[in-house]
Each structure stands twice: as structure tokens, then as C-alpha cells.
């Protein structure tokens, strides 16, 4: 049969979820950090009264509007996909996970309906204080949205606070234990820090690009400088958070860590494998380049610490794609190390007073623009592929979670998703690059001067100042 040559319905459903969620998360990964950055910019403007911060706020708020819109649109699909493709999972985990996702929807909805419009269109129409409040609430709202989503994801990694009913459903026993499950606090810290870094690197790349064209552009200097401070301070901290999360994972999900490290045998004084080819059939990592004992030192903080290998676990309890976990982890770490290096070099150049004039460094910063998105994406692939073969770790298998949908149906929807996403988000990302290409100028126009972003929600703000919109540069209210 022709269909025998195709992947199974389960594999295609997994790929479809991976594709749509990866695409989706690119947007919030930037939005969450950018919202906080905008709040900082506006706060600095109100505090120092320097126009340059207002110009930067207006420059980046246009990017924020488009990015937020794409995040909302790609997110709607996610809230339906649990049911369409993972119905067995939804039925059993709904009583626990449903409210967490429900609260996320309510928060996002509330935010979209209320404060986003004021933030995007309200400068010059409401007072400065009220506008700043709206910006801060949007920033806090994105953090709350992330809170619920990450809580739900973490519960799938380290389920707690539940009981299992006679029909196999997970039933809530203790909401506090469910929401603040063991892996949640560190994961939240690590992810939010990742979004801040993502934003810093994109802002830094745009600033560097404009500095290469015009080194005297003060606004480009300020955004570049802020981005480099952020990278220098946060990238090393992120390494620490990542290490802590690794220690935690070793306790709760030793198989995942073994796959990340490429360890098959349990050993004392385990080496750190820098590179290699994990071979699932031969159950070994071939052609490995190792540093003796460093693995134990990193994971156990002890030269002779014992590390469990994959062979310790029956094959049906191991991650289903060890090379994917192994390599994704390395890509994330490599991106992170490059960020740390960028931060250190920026400090050195700043001390020498040539931060804005060193062309090779500016080009490097431009090249690092997508590195935050890359690190976040591959970090998620590491943790999600490492959670396999389970959806609820140790309790519910991925194969038992899928909807009873025939393979051709999933293949059709997957093809549709790929085509529509590339057209729609391709157009959106093209538009973002057009905004980036434009240098930040004095008296930057804000989101008001752009064609309206309808996804700004049911905001009244555009109408409030409709008559004023004839002026190209609406001034803030005094």
C-alpha cells in the first residue's frame, strides 16, 4: 500500500505539533522580552526626560505590534490542537491542565482587550502616567501569560498534586502543588531569562546594523549599548540557571540528561562528551571527543560522581530520538557560549572606548541577532524531545495520547499548516525586516502612523484621537 511508505499518524501528529508550536514560540520569545524592554525605555524617558528614549520606544513599539499580532494568531491554533490531535491526552489531563491553559487565555484576552491598545495608540491621547501604567501592565501580562503556559508544561515534566481516578483521568488534589510543581520555578526563570536575551540580541543586531551605516546615530548607539549591557550581565547568569536546571533534571529525569550527555554506560568520573554521534542501534556514542571527568564535575559537582547511562533504563523508557536531544542541547549551549563571549568583548571594547567604532564587533553582533531565537528553540527541542516517550512524564505515553485520526487526515492538515504558515508568517516577518531596515530617527513616529494592526484588539484608542492623526508626529500629552 502507498500509505505504508508514509510516516505513521502518530509521527505526523507529533511533527505537526512540533512545527506549529516551534513557529508559535518564536513570537512570544521576542514579545515577552520586548514588552519589558519597552517598559524600561518609557520609564527611562519619564525619569531622564531624554528624547532619545522616547524615539526608541516609538521605534520598537511598531515592531512589538506586528510581533504580538503574529503571536496571537499562531497561538489560537495551539488552543485547539490539544483537542484535534491529542484528544486522549486532553481527556485524561483536562481536569488538571485545562484551568491552567484557561487562565492563560483569560489573561491574554484581558490584556489584548484592555491595555495593548492604549500602549500602541494611546501616547499623546492619555496622560503619560496612565500610558506608562498600560505599558507596564502589558509587560506584566506577557509574564503572567508565560507563567500559566510554563506551569502547564512543567506539570507534564514533573506531575504533582494529582490523583488518578478509576477511569484513568488525572484529578486535581492540590492546586498549589500543581501550579508550583517541582520543575516549574527554574524552568520559568530559565525561559524568561531566555526571552530577555533573545530581545537583547535582536535589539543589539539592529543597533549594530545601523551603526555600521551611520556611527553617529545616537539612537542606534543607545539601543546597542543597552543591548550589550544586557547581554554581558544576563548571558552568564543564564549559564548558571541552565546548570541548575540540569541538576534538577538529573534528579527527576535522568534519562533525559543521559541523552543530552550521550552517556550509555553508568560510570563514576564520567567524561564530558563535547561532540560525537549517538548511535541508538549500537547503544554507544561513536567518534566522541571527550574531556575526562568533567561530566561528573558539572552534573554532580564532584570529580568522581556517578552518572547513570541510558542502558540503565529499559529501551521503552528512553528518549526516542537520542541524537536529536544530544545535538539540540549542543546547539543551545554553543549559542549561549557565543553570547557570553559577545558580552565579555563588549565590556572590553567599552572600557577601551571603541564599542561603537569596532566594525568586526558590530558585524559579529549583527550575526548574533537570531542566536537568542536559535538557543530558545533548541533548548525547547532538548527538553521536549527528552521528555519522550511520555507526554506526562512516567505516567502517560505519547503513543497513548494521540487522537484516533487517520494518517491521511493528519498528512493533509500538516501540509496545509506548512503552506499557510510560510505564506502568512513569511509576509509578517518580511514586514518586520522592513521595519528593522529603517534607521531609528529623531521624532520617530509611533504605531499610530502605521496602518492599523487590527490584532491590537477592540481598542478604542485609535478613535479617541482620530482627528489628531492628521499630524504626522503626534506629540505626547503634557
Amino acid at each position, binding site marked *: 500500500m502507498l500509505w505504508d511508505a508514509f510516516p505513521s499518524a502518530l509521527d505526523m501528529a507529533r511533527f505537526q505539533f512540533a512545527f506549529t508550536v516551534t513557529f508559535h514560540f518564536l513570537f512570544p520569545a521576542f514579545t515577552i522580552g520586548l514588552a519589558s524592554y519597552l517598559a524600561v525605555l518609557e520609564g527611562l524617558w519619564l525619569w531622564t526626560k531624554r528624547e532619545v528614549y522616547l524615539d526608541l520606544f516609538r521605534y520598537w513599539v511598531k515592531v512589538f505590534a506586528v510581533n504580538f499580532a503574529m503571536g496571537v*494568531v*499562531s497561538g*489560537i*491554533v495551539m*488552543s*485547539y490542537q*490539544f*483537542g*484535534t*490531535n491529542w*484528544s486522549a491526552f*486532553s*481527556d485524561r*489531563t*483536562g*481536569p*488538571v491542565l*485545562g*484551568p491552567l*491553559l*484557561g*487562565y*492563560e*487565555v*483569560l489573561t491574554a*484576552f*484581558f490584556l*489584548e*482587550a*484592555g491595555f495593548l491598545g492604549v500602549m500602541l495608540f494611546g501616547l499623546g491621547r492619555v496622560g503619560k502616567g496612565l500610558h506608562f501604567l498600560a505599558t507596564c501592565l502589558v509587560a506584566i501580562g506577557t509574564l503572567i501569560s508565560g507563567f500559566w503556559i510554563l506551569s502547564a508544561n512543567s506539570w507534564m515534566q514533573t506531575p504533582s498534586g494529582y490523583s488518578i481516578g478509576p*477511569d484513568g483521568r488525572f*484529578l*486535581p488534589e492540590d*492546586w498549589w502543588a500543581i501550579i508550583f510543581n517541582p520543575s516549574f520555578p527554574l524552568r520559568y526563570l530559565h525561559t524568561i531569562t531566555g526571552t530577555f536575551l533573545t530581545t537583547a540580541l535582536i535589539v543589539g543586531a539592529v543597533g549594530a546594523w545601523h551603526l555600521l551605516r551611520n556611527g553617529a546615530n545616537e539612537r542606534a548607539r543607545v539601543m546597542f549599548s543597552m543591548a550589550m549591557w544586557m547581554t554581558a550581565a544576563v548571558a552568564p547568569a543564564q549559564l548558571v540557571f541552565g546548570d541548575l536546571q540540569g541538576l534538577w533534571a538529573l534528579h527527576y529525569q535522568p534519562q533525559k540528561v543521559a541523552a543530552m550527555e550521550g552517556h550509555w554506560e553508568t560510570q563514576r568520573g564520567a567524561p564530558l562528551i563535547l561532540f560525537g554521534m549517538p548511535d541508538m542501534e549500537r547503544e554507544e556514542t561513536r567518534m566522541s571527543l571527550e574531556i575526562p571527568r568533567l561530566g561528573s564535575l558539572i552534573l554532580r559537582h564532584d570529580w568522581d560522581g556517578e552518572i547513570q547511562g541510558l542502558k540503565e533504563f529499559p529501551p521503552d523508557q528512553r528518549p526516542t530520538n537520542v541524537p536529536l536531544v544530544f545535538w539540540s542541547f549542543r546547539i543551545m549551549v554553543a549559542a549561549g557560549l557565543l553570547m557570553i563571549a559577545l558580552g565579555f568583548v563588549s565590556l572590553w571594547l567599552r572600557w577601551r572606548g571603541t564599542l561603537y567604532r569596532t566594525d568586526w564587533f558590530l558585524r559579529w553582533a549583527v550575526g548574533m541577532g537570531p542566536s537568542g531565537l536559535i538557543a530558545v528553540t533548541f533548548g525547547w527541542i532538548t527538553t521536549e524531545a527528552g521528555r519522550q516517550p511520555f507526554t506526562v512524564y512516567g505516567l502517560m505515553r505519547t503513543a497513548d495520547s494521540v*487522537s*484516533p*485520526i*487517520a494518517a*491521511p*487526515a493528519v498528512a493533509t*492538515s500538516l501540509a*496545509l499548516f506548512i503552506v*499557510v504558515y510560510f*505564506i*502568512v508568517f513569511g*509576509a509578517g516577518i518580511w*514586514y518586520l525586516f522592513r521595519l528593522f531596515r529603517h534607521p531609528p530617527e529623531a521624532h520617530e513616529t509611533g504605531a499610530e502612523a502605521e*496602518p*492599523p*494592526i*487590527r*490584532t*491590537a*484588539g*477592540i*481598542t*478604542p484608542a*485609535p*478613535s*479617541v484621537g482620530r482627528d489628531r492623526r492628521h499630524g504626522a508626529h503626534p506629540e505626547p500629552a503634557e
Partner: protein
Amino acid sequence: MINETVAVIWALLIATGIFLYVCMDGFDLGVGILFPWLRDREDRDTAVNTVAPVWDGNETWLVLGGGGLFAVFPLAYAVILPALYMPLIVMLLALIFRGVAFEMRFRAETPKQRLWWDRAFSGGSMVATFCQGIALGALVQGIEVEERAYAGGWWDWVSGFSVLTGLALLAGYGLLGACWLIWKTEGALQDRGRELARWLGSLTLGFILVVSLVMPFLQPEFRARWFDFPAILLALPVPVLVVLLAWRFYRALDESEEAARKRPGPVPPRQVLWHDGVPFFCALGLFLLSYIGLGISMWPMIVPPEITIWEAAAPESTQVFILVGAAILIPIILAYTGYVYWLFRGKVQAGQGYH
């Protein structure tokens, strides 16, 4: 006992949410459906500007429906969504496509580009509506369930009845769109809206009649609801009210036409002409009656013919936990929505509005 009451509260809440979605996204999808009958570029711009400030807020209710169902009736969510796999996925993609077309038609650099975005907007609106209608028909017709899971095939949603409801919804949303244009515009575009509303009204009433005649034969329970005594006492007023409302609808169209002929000049900004809004509210009334009729047929099933709302309900702790948040946030959102509609009241003139 408490659990059962909370489940009823939630069923009513979600039903209300879906109805609000149908009312609000209905007319803005309807405007997209009418595009092939609005050839003039300026008319299209004005028509789009009437829905521009509100359409995205309208659509958000859809997410609340999906999220709410997962949280409160996970079993229904887990059975209905796979059963309606294709129509729902295509609907979501059509809505995304339409949303982007909405943005991009204002950013088009040439008339030709704009024409293509117009086609995408209109096509997306039609496909999304048709899929919603199909999904409704397939749900009402019944879903095969075995051991807490969907047990049918991936083409089960295709049937004469579901295609019928798909077409009915196209006519119905088109009617809402036309009535919305009568309320929100004037001059030639309003005349066009009235013309369209007349025959879309007849078409919608025809579909309501046919669907009502077919419904009792789909499930024995439906038949019992409508024809057995004393249930018929509850059900009987519905068709009577439909007839009365249809009569009021056509009279309102005539009145609005009469008033437009007598009007000396353009309507001042922000002045609400309530008599121009009567056809719109009559059309909403027809939707409400059809919805209540549907509710009478289905109650207390959430997935006919197998699963009741109590069987599908999440445990009490879950329902109460999320009810707290909903009770605080939904009234605020509703108040805000009402405020926005009030802010954008009155006629939208050509060339005015967002640009």
C-alpha cells in the same frame, strides 16, 4: 449536587460565549461573504472600515470557547475536536488567512495586489463560515463514541445535513453582514445592503425551515422533544416567534428605506439611527431563536447522542477553580466590549474611519 449545578452554569456560560461569538464574528464574516456583490472599491473600503475596530475582539471569543471547553468539559473537547478534525483545522487556517488579508489590503501597493488581498479576505470569510456550519451540522447529527473517544472515520462530518447547515450559515452570516451595513452606512452602499438583506433574509428563512424539518428525523430524542406532550408546550413558541420576527424584519427594511429617501443630507457623525438598526437586531433574533431551538433539541447532551454535560464535566474542583477567574474577568471584558461598540457608534462615511 453542587458539581451538577456548576456544570449547568458552565454549560450556559459556554453556550452564551459561543452565541456571542456567532453574533459578533457573524456580521464581520458576513461583510467578507458579501464582497463579490460589492464591486466598487470605495464601498469595499467603507464596508471593511465598519468592522475594522471590532473584528479581532469578536474573534477572541472563539479562543475562549475552545479554552473553556478544554477546562470544563474535557471529554466533550476530546471527542468533538477529533470528530470535526478537517472542518475545524480548515476554519482556523481560513481565519488566520483572512486576518492577515485584512491587514495587508491596507498595505497593498498596487490595485492588483489589493484585488488579491480582497479575494483572500472574502474567500477566507466564506471558507471559515462554511466550515463552522459544517461543524455544527456534524455535531447535531451525532458523533460516534466508544470508550471515551471518537470512534468514527475522518470523513464522517460530510453529509447532506452538514452541507445544508454549512450553506445555511453562509446565508445567515451574509444576512447579518448586510443588516450591519444598513445600520452602519448610508447612500448607495446602504441601498445595496437593503437589496442584499431582502433576498438573503428569504434564503435564511428557507434554510431555517428546511433544517427544522430535517432535525427531528436525525435523532429519536429530538423528535420526542418537539412532538410529545408536554414538551411541545416549551418548543411551540419558537416557530411562532420566528414567523413574527420575519414579518417585523421586512417591515423594518421598508421603514429604513422610507427614512433614507426622506433624509435631506448625510447623517451627522456619531448619531445612532436606531430604526436602521432594527433589521440587524431582527436578524440576531432569528439567530437566537434558531439557537434556542437547537438547545431544546440537544439538552442535556453536549455530544449527541451519547454524552451529557454531566458526563463530560471536569471534577468540581476544576470547575470552581476556573469559574473564579471567569467570574472576575468576563464581566470586565464584556463591559469593555460594550464601551468600544458605543465609542464607534454611528455611520461610517466613505473615506473616513481608519484612513
